[in-house]
Structures are given as C-alpha cells and as structure tokens.
C-alpha cells in the first residue's frame, strides 16, 4: 500500500523546546509548518528541566554576557566552539525576555523582575565570585517553558502530527534532504511528509544507559536517522553525568538545590566538595562534582546502608524556602526516595543526564559535514537544534541552565535561517519516488513474526553494558570489552521478533524502532570514547588522566561506515570578541 503523502514548507521532527521554538518562528512568518512528534508535545523531555535558563540579566548580581561566555567556554573544557558560544550568550537575555513576553510564568524578585538563582560554574569578572544567572520558574522551568511554547504554537496554528514516529530522512541523489517518512502510531500507517526544510529536534538519548535522568522516550531517534542517512555524529564521547540523580528511579534533583544553598556530604558528615573545588565548592562544574561524588563512594565514604550514595543536605534552608523555590524537588524526594528534604538529606548518585555531542551544525542550525570544500559544509535542506544537535556550545561539559537556553536561541536561529533560505529558493526539488523506501523497509522488518528474543531483553542488556563500560570513569580495556559485547548484542538484535502484530497503537513496534536508534548511538559513544585518549570535561579516561590540548583540542566525528573516527578543529575564534585560550581549569 502506498503511504499517504503530505506537503509542507518545513517539517520539524520533535515537539520539545527546540522544535517548538523553531516551529513558532516559522509559523509566525506565515510558513506552513508541520511538527512531527512521537508523543503529545507537552510530554517531551523538556518538561522535566527544573532549575532554569541562564541569561546574564543581572537582576540579582551585576552581570554581562561576556562573563557568561567565559564561564561557558571554561565549563566546556575549551572544547566548545567560541563563535557559537558568543552567539548564544549574546542572545541569551533577549531570548529569555521574549519567553517572558510570551507569558512564561517566571518566579519574581521583589522589584518585579525575573527571579535568578546561582548555578554551577557561574562567575563574575571571568572566574571571580559566584554569579546569580539562572532564571527560574520555581523548580519547574522546563515545564513552564514547554507549555508556554506549545500554547504559542496553538496560537500560531502550527500543524501538529501528534504521536507520529519519524522513521527516516528523505533524500535525493544529490544529497538534498526533502522531508521525512513517519509512522502514525495510532493508525499504524506510514506517512510521507515532503518539505523544503527538515529540522531534527529529537532530543537526547540518555536511555542508552541503565540509570538515567532521561524520560523513557529519549532514545536518540534523530541521531539514528542521521547516521542511517550517512551523516556523522560529533563528540559522542561526552555524556554528562549529573551529580545528583535519585538512586533507582534516576529522577533528577536539580542543581538549583545547591544553587539555593544545599550541599553534599559523605558518611563522615564532611562537606567534601571543599576538598575538590575549594573556591566554587558544590557549585563547581557538573563533571567535577560528579567525579567527586563517584570518588567518595568508591573510597568507602558513601552514605546509606550499602554506602553507595551521597547525601544532599538542604534541611538547613528551612521549610519556607524549600516550599517556595523547590516544591517539585520536595515532591520527587518524598515520592521516589521517601524522605522529606525539610527534615533529612536526599540520597543521590551520579546519573547519566545529557549528551553534549550530536549532529554537527553551524550556528544557524544547519547540519554540517566534511565535504569537498571543508570540514563544515551544510547538508542542503537539513537542520538540527537542541540536545540532538552539537553546535557546539557545551563542548566537553555543559553548564546547568545552558540547555534550555540552547533550545530557544538556536531554535529561533534555525527558524530564521529556514525562513531566509525558503524565500531565496522558492522552487521545491522533486522528491524521488523511492525516497521513502529505506524507512518503509525498516518498518516492514518488524512485521516478520515468529520466535526470537524480546526487544526488552536486548534493550536492558544494551543499557547495562553502557552503564558498566562507559560510565563516569573509562579505560581502554573496558571500552574495548564493551565494543566486543556490543557486536554480539547487535547480532542478537537481528533475531528479535515481535509478538504483537496489531497495527493499532503498537508500542511494541515503536520500542523496536527505538532500539534500532539506541544501538548506533551507543556504538558511536563507545567508539568515540575509545578514540579520545585524554580526559576532558565529562570524558574521564583513567588511563589518560590529563587533558591533552596538543593532540585533542578538536572535535571527533563518528561515521557508522566502518566505525570511522575523523576529527575537525575547535572553532577558537569568537564572532567579535577576543578568544579565551585554553588554560588549566580549576573551580
């Protein structure tokens, strides 16, 4: 049966913060935009972001975007591209103000301005005293942001394809991206969406790990699509482990808790971050704090009956502040850890949280690949923003509060670039008849029934493998062993069969398609981690404990074809200001 065909000016895959911000820009300019999302947009993972969105508004302490830029470059362990970082920090304030004008219910200061709280890695005067830079709506900033953007898109009459699972990019022989094939989850029927611009905003892939703060839906679907289209992924070895996830469930306990004055203690009752980061203490960068927590637990100074957690103490903040500024955290702690943070510390462990790497783009959100004329040639018709993309503003380690900012700044930038491009190129290219074939074939593969292993078994095996072989600390032996095991797992994946044959809302089939995306992302992570023989930001190699700027001040590019690793230089030159040259990173 031939799939139904729809035509739009632009198609956006993913209904989280990045996708919705870009969609709003496009709908607002009068273009016909479709947002394809495998969940109803407000179920996207942006909704779980807690602490806030960083912008140098200076509402609480003196501030300017230069300091924000310095902190972000330093936080990235000098791997971030400084042109993109300048672009993001320069536009941060206006992006946040714009959200406020849309109605985002920010918490407020007494003078009526947006409430800001201190976050990790923030400083005044290029490394001076702690800055207060993260704009917050209590501890539900992501929820407030996502709902506001969704509402604005309703107003702008964006077309939503809710509960449609994107399968593969459509390309012509010249490599132009011309849309996407998708599966209607409710109907079970395939759909071909033709568009003059295609934007990937599919979010992260934290579900490659067994313990992750990420939602079940974070399966790297856009990354799988990019790899299958022959594109490379950048810096995939850099995964942020958040220092404070709840053991077991993995739910995130916001950095905002430490921003409001909470701190970590070991089983001696010692505030151990004073040893690891004498100046910034608990508000050092996340990679630094996560490693410290892991080391404390490893050294036998963990808390709890098994000594496998660290305590996050905030009872000294008082009930009033906790209820006013951290109500969501209290709810999570009560529900998932059985403790009321007003009375007792919250048990936490480092938990996989954020993918700094992703689909390489320039600061207009255009996907870029090495080609004839240089390492960063735009792939015509294809854009990527948000966690699935790598512009790269986060480099080797993202600062808290910069991810929501990334979504809105680059979501808008990509939208603007698409508007211009479509205006200058009004004539669509012809979509080849067979453009959707690969995606539909993948779908048909899961129609084979019979006996075999289950999707769940393989998925859990993959997640366990990544957890044990590619965690906070890595070694060559561990990574190599992981790759060998992954080869075996991938063979087993070929023999997996579905028992659910219904077409209607077949979530078993969706989970199978998601697993097909998790695998290449996990493999990209292992191969890239093995290649980078240094420790930088979130990538900590026990066998190469030092940062090696001579050899590794560059981005990795992973291609699926032969597990190949290429590199490209870091863009050390900002747009207008002087570069921040790499130096030793201490907090």
């Amino acid at each position, binding site marked *: 049966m031939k799939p139904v065909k729809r035509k739009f000016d632009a198609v956006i895959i993913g209904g989280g913060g990045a996708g919705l911000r870009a969609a709003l820009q496009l709908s607002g300019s009068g273009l016909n935009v479709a947002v394809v999302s495998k*969940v*109803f947009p*407000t*179920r*996207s*993972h942006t*909704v*779980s972001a807690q602490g806030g969105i960083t912008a140098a508004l200076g509402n609480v302490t003196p501030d300017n975007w230069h300091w924000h830029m310095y902190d972000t470059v330093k936080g990235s362990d000098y791997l971030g591209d400084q042109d993109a970082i300048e672009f993001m920090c320069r536009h941060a304030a206006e992006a946040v*103000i714009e959200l*406020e*004008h*849309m*109605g985002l*219910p*920010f*918490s*407020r*200061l*007494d*003078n*009526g*301005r*947006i409430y800001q709280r201190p976050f990790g890695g923030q400083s005044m005067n290029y490394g001076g005293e702690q800055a207060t830079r993260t704009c917050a*709506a209590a501890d*539900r900033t992501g*929820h*407030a942001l996502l*709902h506001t953007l969704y*509402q*604005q898109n*309703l*107003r702008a009459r964006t077309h939503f394809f809710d509960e449609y699972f994107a399968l593969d990019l459509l390309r012509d022989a010249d490599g132009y991206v011309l849309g996407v094939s998708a599966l209607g989850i*409710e109907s079970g029927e395939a759909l071909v969406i033709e568009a003059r611009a295609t934007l990937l905003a599919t979010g992260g892939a934290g579900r490659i790990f067994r313990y992750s703060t990420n*939602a*079940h*839906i974070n399966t790297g679907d856009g990354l799988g699509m990019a790899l299958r289209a022959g594109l490379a992924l950048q810096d995939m070895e850099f995964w942020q482990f958040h220092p404070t996830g709840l053991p*077991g*469930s993995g*739910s995130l306990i916001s950095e905002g808790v430490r921003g409001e004055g909470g701190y970590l203690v070991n089983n001696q009752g010692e505030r151990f971050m004073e040893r690891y980061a004498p100046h910034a203490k608990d508000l050092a960068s996340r990679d630094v704090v996560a490693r410290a927590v892991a080391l404390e637990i490893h050294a036998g100074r963990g808390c709890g009956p098994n000594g496998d957690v660290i305590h996050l103490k905030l009872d000294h903040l008082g009930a009033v502040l906790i209820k006013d500024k951290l109500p*969501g955290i209290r*709810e*999570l702690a009560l*529900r*998932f850890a*059985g403790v009321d943070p007003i009375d007792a510390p919250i048990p936490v462990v480092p938990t996989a949280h954020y993918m700094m790497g992703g689909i390489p783009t320039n600061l207009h959100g255009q996907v870029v690949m090495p080609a004839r004329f240089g390492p960063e040639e735009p792939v015509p018709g294809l854009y990527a923003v948000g966690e699935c993309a790598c512009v790269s503003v986060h480099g080797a380690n993202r600062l808290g509060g910069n991810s929501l900012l990334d979504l809105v700044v680059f979501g808008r930038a990509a939208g603007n670039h698409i508007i211009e491009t479509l205006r200058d190129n009004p004539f669509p290219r012809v979509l080849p008849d067979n453009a959707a074939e690969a995606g539909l074939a993948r779908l048909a593969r899961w129609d084979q029934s019979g006996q075999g292993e*289950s*999707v*769940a078994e393989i998925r*859990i095996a993959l997640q366990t493998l990544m957890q044990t072989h590619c965690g906070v600390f890595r070694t060559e032996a561990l990574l190599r062993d992981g790759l060998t095991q992954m080869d075996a797992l991938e063979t087993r994946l070929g023999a997996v069969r*579905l*028992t*659910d044959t*219904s*077409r*209607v*809302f*077949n*979530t*078993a089939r969706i*989970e199978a398609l998601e697993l097909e995306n998790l695998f290449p992302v996990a493999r990209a992570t292992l191969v890239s981690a093995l290649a980078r023989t240094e420790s930088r930001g979130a990538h900590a190699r026990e066998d190469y404990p030092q940062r090696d700027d001579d050899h590794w001040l560059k981005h990795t590019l992973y291609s699926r074809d032969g597990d190949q690793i290429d590199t490209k230089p870091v863009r050390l030159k900002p747009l207008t200001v002087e570069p921040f040259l790499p130096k030793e990173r201490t907090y």
Partner: protein
Amino acid sequence: MRFSIYRYDPEHDAQPRMQTYELDIEPAGNMLLDALLRIKDEQDSSLTLRRSCREGVCGSDGMNINGSNGLACITPLTGLKQPIAVRPLPGLPVIRDLVVDMTPLNQQYKSVEPWLNNADPAPEIERLQSPAQRAQLDGLVECIQCGCCSSACPSFWWNPDKFVGPAGLLAAYRYIADSRDQNTDARLDNLQDPYRLFRCHGIMNCVSVCPKGLNPTAAIGKIKTLLVKRST
C-alpha cells in the same frame, strides 16, 4: 502481586476484557508504572500504555487505578488493594488497552485560547510582576494536562463537546489571573454560555483526583465570581 488490566485491541477483540497478571515485585519503593512496564517487558509486550517522564511531570500515564484516576508513575504499589484494577481514563474513547483518545480534552483546552494577550508594545525588559501578582498563578501553572480531572467529571462525560471541563477552565483562569494579560473581558465572554462554564456543579471530583494537588473547582468559582462582579 496481582493485577487486573483492561485490554482491548480493536483489530482482534470484539469486546474489551479484564486480563489478570501475576508479577513478582516488591511493592515498597516501586510505582504502578514500574509494575506495568515489567509486565510489558517480561510477560506481554502487547500491553499498551503511554509513558514518558516516569516522574509525574509529563502527564502521559493518566489511568483509572482501583476506581480512581491517577498517574501510574507516581502511584506507589504499597497500599493498593489487590488485584489492582487498572482501566483507561473513563469517559474518553479507548484506542487500545490503557490508551485513550485525548482529542476532546485538547479541543477544549485550545478553545479557551490559553496564551497571553497583551496589546501594549513589548518593553525592552520583562513585563514587571510583583511576587504577590505571581503568587496568583500558583496552583494554576502547574497543570500537566494529564486529563485525570476532566475524565473524572460527570459533566464532562455527558458534554465533552460543549463543557470546557476542569482542565480547560483551569487553563482559562490561569490567564485571567495573570497580571500581564489584558484579555479578561473576552475570556469571560468566551465562557459565558449555559454549557462552557456552567455545567460545573461543583462536585469536586477533579480536586480529589488531581495528581498535582491542584484545585480546578476553586478556579471555576473565581471565574463565576468575576462574571457576577462584571455584570453588577
């Protein structure tokens, strides 16, 4: 633990049925969603439900649990009477198993125009709002659109096409209560007919099931008060 779960696949079943599952799971520290996903992973991959954040903020897994609506991901197994009866949210068309068609809810949500309207030129900085004005939005902006409230409301069951329902009315009041919004009059006009607002008879089912502890009935009462004030 024993579970009795509503099953219906329109392709294979003429009638819905309740299916029993046994699962070896420690109730302490586990939520209903953990159990459902383990049943799906280990026993029956065809069991169909929505889930995303698994921590009570995305609103995907609203369902009827032992007769009361709630989110599976934040309903502890401890304290649930066995066999735990799990059904789809009532009053909405069932697509498959625990998955319902949320279209009526979404339509009503859209109908209240849940976005900020302010015709003044935007200032270069944020529109100022005092902490007290912002506090008016507490208990309104936390809604996650899970649908537990509206699908627990008999008035919404009978008139899902005409009655906005508690979720939509909460969203309507969220913008009425916002000091930055200038559209209160039009928002009140939009609700002033025999059905859209006034089908609420204040039975407060919405309040007792809301997984976020919100109070749509209070918000509805405030809208009615504003209508009275406006007409006198």
